[in-house]
């Protein structure tokens, strides 16, 4: 629901124990989750059987593609990094009470900025890749900042504007790759503009880890992990994080105590876009991608990262294993499609699993009658906080 409250190490043990000994509702939620996950997997297996495929073969294909060997799990880790970055970003602005659902577009704009800088700037080796990543973060951040500004000055609902901006981003990137800025030979041999940019120079790419060519890990994964741990710490332990949480939980009290609510809320939205943009930079410079900007670059990483954040209830540390789980499905899905079962199966499984994780606490509340109790709010809801509207 929110980042862990500040705690001393001696409390930590107690709190962890408290989590391990859930109350009646906790047990119910956990068992309901397990049941729903089983149902989700069962439904997927049934679907496979009905369409003439073998569930066990598919499971084994996903396993082979994602975890069974070095190639598999490096692919998984490569997939996990951008997902985790997107999810961490989503967690930041969710802590401040803003629901950003435009990560897919922010990823793309990140890629656009990264590609533009990578193709235009002639910087020496390692510097270029750093600048490309920074540009990607700036791009995603600016794109999200537009939504923040629209909310700030015209009260435009953030959920709706980030959603609509995603579709604008797709068109913007489609348009941009055909312009001379990103593509010197704008006309291919066929005379039709290519739908992708020129490849980035080698200096702009994230290399593998030295002499192990099969280990295609790169700095991206470490960047994402550091971001997750860092954001978790900042949100729970720092003054800034304290203010962010205050804004998320009660913007008026926050304002009263001297927090620049509108500015901080807008900044977290931009920051969340920046993390998504950085994920776009990673995708662009990844050793396994074509290293060209195209509208398909984001490949649902933005949507999936958002789902990771939802399942992790906007807690950055929990997002680490969840993003890994999603990455297993993505990597396995690619392998699966090679065996003749459409990749889309993985999308179905993902959606069902998200429901299985998101629904139980609320269903338990429903079973309990909930009346008189505090309503469970697993996600910060006020896209436009009522109270703010009245007060601003």
């Amino acid at each position: 629901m929110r980042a862990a409250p500040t705690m001393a190490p001696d409390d930590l043990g107690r709190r962890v124990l408290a989590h391990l000994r859930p109350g009646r509702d906790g047990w119910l939620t956990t068992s309901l989750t397990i049941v729903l996950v089983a149902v989700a997997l069962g439904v997927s297996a049934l679907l496979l059987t009905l369409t003439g495929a073998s569930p066990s073969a598919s499971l084994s294909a996903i396993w082979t593609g994602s975890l069974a060997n070095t190639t598999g799990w490096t692919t998984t880790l490569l997939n996990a990094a951008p997902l985790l970055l997107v999810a961490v970003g989503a967690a930041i602005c969710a802590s401040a009470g803003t629901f950003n659902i435009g990560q897919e577009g922010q990823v793309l704009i990140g890629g656009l900025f990264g590609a533009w800088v990578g193709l235009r700037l002639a910087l020496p080796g390692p510097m270029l890749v750093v600048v490309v990543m920074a540009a990607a973060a700036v791009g995603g951040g600016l794109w999200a900042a537009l939504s923040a500004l629209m909310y700030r000055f015209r009260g435009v609902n953030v959920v709706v504007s980030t959603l609509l901006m995603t579709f604008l981003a797709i068109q913007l990137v489609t348009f941009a790759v055909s312009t001379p800025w990103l593509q010197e030979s704008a006309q291919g041999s066929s005379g039709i503009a290519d739908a992708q940019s020129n490849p980035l120079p080698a200096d702009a790419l994230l290399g593998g880890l030295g002499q192990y060519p099969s280990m295609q890990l790169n700095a991206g994964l470490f960047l994402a992990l550091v971001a997750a741990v860092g954001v978790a710490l900042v949100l729970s332990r720092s003054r800034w994080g304290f203010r962010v949480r205050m804004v998320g939980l009660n913007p008026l009290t926050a304002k009263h105590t001297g927090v620049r609510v509108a500015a901080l809320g807008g900044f977290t939205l931009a920051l969340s876009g920046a993390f998504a943009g950085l994920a776009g930079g990673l995708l662009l410079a990844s050793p396994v991608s074509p290293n060209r900007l195209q509208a398909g670059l984001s490949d649902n990483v933005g949507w999936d990262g958002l789902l990771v954040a939802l399942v992790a209830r906007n807690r950055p540390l929990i997002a680490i294993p969840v993003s890994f789980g999603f990455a297993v499905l993505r990597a396995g899905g690619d392998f699966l499609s090679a065996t003749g079962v459409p990749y889309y199966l993985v999308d179905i499984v993902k959606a069902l699993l998200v429901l299985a994780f998101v629904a139980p606490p609320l269903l338990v509340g429903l079973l309990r009658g909930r009346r008189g109790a505090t309503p469970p709010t697993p996600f910060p809801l006020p896209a436009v906080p009522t109270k703010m509207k009245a007060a601003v």
Partner: protein
Amino acid sequence: MTPTTSAVPILELRGITKSYGSVTACDAVDLRVEAGEIHGLLGENGAGKSSLMKVLLGLVRRDTGTVLVRGEEVALDSPQEAAELGIGMVHQHFSLINGLTVWENVALGDTGKVNKQAVCDGIAEVSARYGLPVDPEARVDALSAGERQRVEVVKCLRRDPQILILDEPTSVLTQAESQELFAVLDRVVANEGRAVILISHKLAEIAQATDRVTVLRKGRVAFRAVTSDTTPQLLARQMVGREVSLGEEGAALGLLPVQQTRAGHDGAHDRQQAVLRLAGLTVVQGGVEVLGSVDLTVGAGEIVGLYGVEGNGQSILGDVLAGLVAPTEGTIEVAGNRVDVTRPGALSKAGLGIVPEDRHHSGVVLDMSVAENLTMKSLDEVSGRFLLRRRATLARARRLADEFNIVTPSLDAPVRSLSGGNQQRVVLARELSGDTRVLVAAQPTHGLDVGAIEDMYARLRRAADEGVGVLLISTELEEVMALASWIAVISSGRISGALPVSEATPERLGMLVGGEAA
């Protein structure tokens, strides 16, 4: 008007019990209401009045007990059924919907086809009969609080209810408007033989307007009597369950304090040493002036009361002083220094503390811990440049919690888990901590029980004795009369007058509330 006790009452509740989880809101409550009477329902906050009425309106299902209407047992499972039985309610917090017109609001809750003409005719008929003019085509958001109240009453009466429930109806009305309302109610019962249930926490009102009275205490019926046989003092004792003094405690219950002769509170002293000075404070919202050129001065160590009926600009003044709304014009000085109100937290830094009108709204962060709530205004003292210091936070919170007797399972417990009185103490403790020169208390006793109200009074007094200037914004006449040394009256967003408490009488204040010079 003397109620006749007929054999079959129009409404009878027998043994109504309603629990929410482990809390029993109503415990075997019996209530008997006759046709042609105004029946007072009196009780502290949390005594079970609203739960009982929700049962009666079919909004919640009772656990046990029977309801008889005109001697017949009824199920009362839905608001529709209640409406068909002729039970109607005028809600305390309006049930009107802003985006709709008056006639649409009136039509809500009916059944069958929507017939605009019939609805408007009905409105016109009721308006004429009771002298309650309303414009059916007006949008509700364009109406004043008093007009909305009128629409509520018309909406309710148009259904021709046999049993009319009014929940704290006078909180938004001036004394003149209240008198008009009671005149309507008298006609409703005397000429038309309906029954009225009047819910109120104002003793004087119950004593004046009702025929019989039932007092609820902690979910049970504590007392019932013919009103003329009782005295406000007796009712007060039944409400609280013990003897009540006629001073402060009486004020907490809505009794005028007998006499307040506190030395040094004659209103004259220390006025020069102003800790809070508002000059020409004006707020315009959506083209409407909601606060008009307010001048107000609070001296060190004095309590100034700002009295007025709900919805006359007090809320917006509270929001301005909480730093939530920037005034369109005017200046605020705290301890002699002009404050730049556009800077967030500037008022608070300058030494102004505020207990806001709605603590859940802008006073506390319900899902943060008690310790976090107590320290959120003084992060400098409990953190380094970047990181919070857990030990310092807890130490400071512990000190404040002890000083203000905050009862909490732990300093790490969320404020949500505390009682209303303790939540209010958390706010008060935080706002008085540090170098507070002036404390604004906006409706500080709303929704508290008598014990918590007395505690709040004592703490406001102590703050004043320690040299803090206190601005008490209140809709309770008795409260300002008991506490303040100087009373200003706000009406339609303007200060309509100010006078020392020694010259203040309910009549004079009432005239000022109505916007007349006194």
